[in-house]
């Protein structure tokens, strides 16, 4: 059974975001593999190590730097990568992204048993793509899972999701879509020998033409949504310290919550 993990190259969590000409200023940004995707890669590799999966394929759509994100997935233990890279993809929204990813899946052929995603990308933070892909393919999906049991012979998977006050258990037929979050597993540190081995694992490049898509179907032209403007969150004001005896502090705090910011 082949499983596919979707990997996005995103700005490092410690990036200080700057804007330039109403776009993100990318000049000083360092990129990493989306941390939520790491849970997905780890889970897929563990399934392979447990003998339930034969091949783990990592797919990314993005500019050249996305190759590094794929290389990180290969270092954790994915077998090969697919990079969808084309200048006309610039400006694509989540719908186009999902459409392109589905095309790449079809192009890669061979049946897959499961599609694994991170629950969200830490940059765009839309949570859209996995659901859109599942919908386009008509596959069952479980989002934000914290436990996964796969039985390839029986053709099913059981996934647990955290919901308010408890857990929800989903049984799905394969192939299915899952999105991964913290708690599912503890991603390993890729070891130096495996990083060196990843260097020699194949990454297949696809352009839009390779996927039988036209420029009008992707990028801004193919998108339903468009980003009109960016703005930074308002600057954090200096905190205020409430001092005094416990009773005084509580009273001051309640007064503040009730009267000043009116949340209670």
């Amino acid at each position: 059974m082949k499983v596919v993990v979707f990997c996005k190259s995103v700005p490092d969590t410690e990036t200080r975001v700057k804007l330039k000409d109403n776009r993100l200023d990318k000049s000083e940004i360092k990129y990493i593999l989306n941390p939520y995707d790491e849970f997905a890669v780890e889970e897929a590799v563990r399934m392979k190590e447990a003998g339930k999966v034969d091949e783990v394929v990592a797919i990314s759509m993005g500019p050249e730097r996305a190759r590094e994100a794929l290389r990180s997935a290969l270092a954790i233990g994915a077998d090969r990568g697919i990079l969808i890279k084309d200048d006309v993809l610039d400006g694509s929204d989540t719908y186009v992204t999902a459409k392109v990813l589905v095309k790449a899946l079809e192009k890669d052929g061979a049946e897959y048993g499961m599609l694994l995603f991170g629950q969200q990308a830490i940059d765009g933070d839309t949570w859209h793509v996995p659901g859109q892909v599942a919908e386009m393919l008509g596959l069952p999906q479980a989002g934000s899972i914290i436990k996964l049991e796969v039985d390839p012979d029986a053709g099913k998977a059981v996934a647990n999701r955290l919901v308010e006050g408890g857990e929800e258990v989903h049984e799905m037929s394969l192939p299915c879509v899952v999105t991964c979050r913290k708690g599912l597993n503890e991603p390993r540190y890729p070891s130096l020998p495996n990083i060196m081995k990843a260097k020699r694992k194949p990454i297949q490049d696809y352009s839009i033409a390779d996927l039988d898509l036209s420029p009008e179907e992707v990028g801004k032209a193919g998108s339903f949504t468009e980003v009109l403007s960016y703005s930074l969150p308002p600057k954090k004001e200096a905190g205020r310290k409430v001092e005094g005896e416990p009773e005084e502090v509580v009273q001051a705090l309640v007064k503040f919550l009730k009267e000043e910011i009116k949340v209670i």
Partner: protein
Amino acid sequence: MIKGVDFMIMEEFLAEEEKIIRDTTRKFVEKEVLPIIGDHYDKGTFPTELIPKIAQLGLLGITTPPEYGGAGASYFSYGLACQELEWCDSGLRSLVSVQNSLCMYPIYTYGSEEQKEKYLPKMCTGETIGCFGLTEPDAGSDPASMRTTAKKVDGGWVLNGNKIWITNAPIAQIAVVWAKTEEGVRGFIVERDTPGFETPEIKKKMSLRFSPTGEIVLEDCFVPDENLLPGSTVGMKAPFSCLNRARYGIAWGAVGAAAFCFEKALNYTKDRVQFGKPLASFQLVQRDLADMFTEVTKCQLLVYRLGRLFDEGRASHVMVSMAKKTCTMTAAQVARKARELLGGNGVSLEYHVIRHLCNMETTTTYEGTDKIHSLIIGRYLTGINAFR
């Protein structure tokens, strides 16, 4: 090129796997070591349970070929790993330097096939930790004047003498010991359980407190013939070739420590308000920050170029001396400035910079003191030996 300081946009000169090696090492030390280091430093202890974790990452055996269990990575990658390890702590980096450059390198380069197969795979997994015994109570900067002897006897050698200031000695399973035979200096692998081999720990040291340091006492210590490193020529060439690699890693490591201190000072002075304004808004503070930033950037350019030359086989030992000398001295100055900019907090282990400052007293001393490297560069420039 190191997170936090990459003013000359060096990132684009790194290969994919180099970035992953750097980032993985950083993630590891940030999560697994930085939170516990203050307590260990305070008590002068080293958590040996860390060794299997470090080994699992492949940090013991970075340049060792895969057939002996290593990663087979480049010296440039080794340098990046040293940088990230020492961003955390010089003692942590020392553990890895000694294992890789001072123990595995001579076994790989001068060892017999049997020695390589016997020791290297277990050194990669951390089951076997090595130490390197060169310095003696009466032979430091001038190791050729060593007094430790190896006398040929039937079936082996009898070693007598004292080594001092030996990193990892108290926790090591093997020691690569340099001793004088009738022909000159040779290297020997001495195993922990050999009768007449002791490694008392050196206490009360105020630097590199995360790294166990000891003596090696050799009293009629019998070492079989098969433990002589057969490929090393007689004399100081072999131990110096090891030191050259370790010094290279120390230079990279110092950049990590310096970058840590600079970033800490920058963030601290931006947050800390005195006289109604952030410290970073005072001209005197900005000059310090500008100087630190510039010095770290200069050192980065140096080790970057040295790393590439090293892998091309074009790095001379004089270049390595220059990098070791200037990077460690720079890191010492940057740590000193950072310590000052953090005010009273600067002397607390909670803020880490005092630890780096204390560590730099060792990194500017071991593997050739600052002065010794000046003499090496001076001899290269003038052709005149000013050592004696």
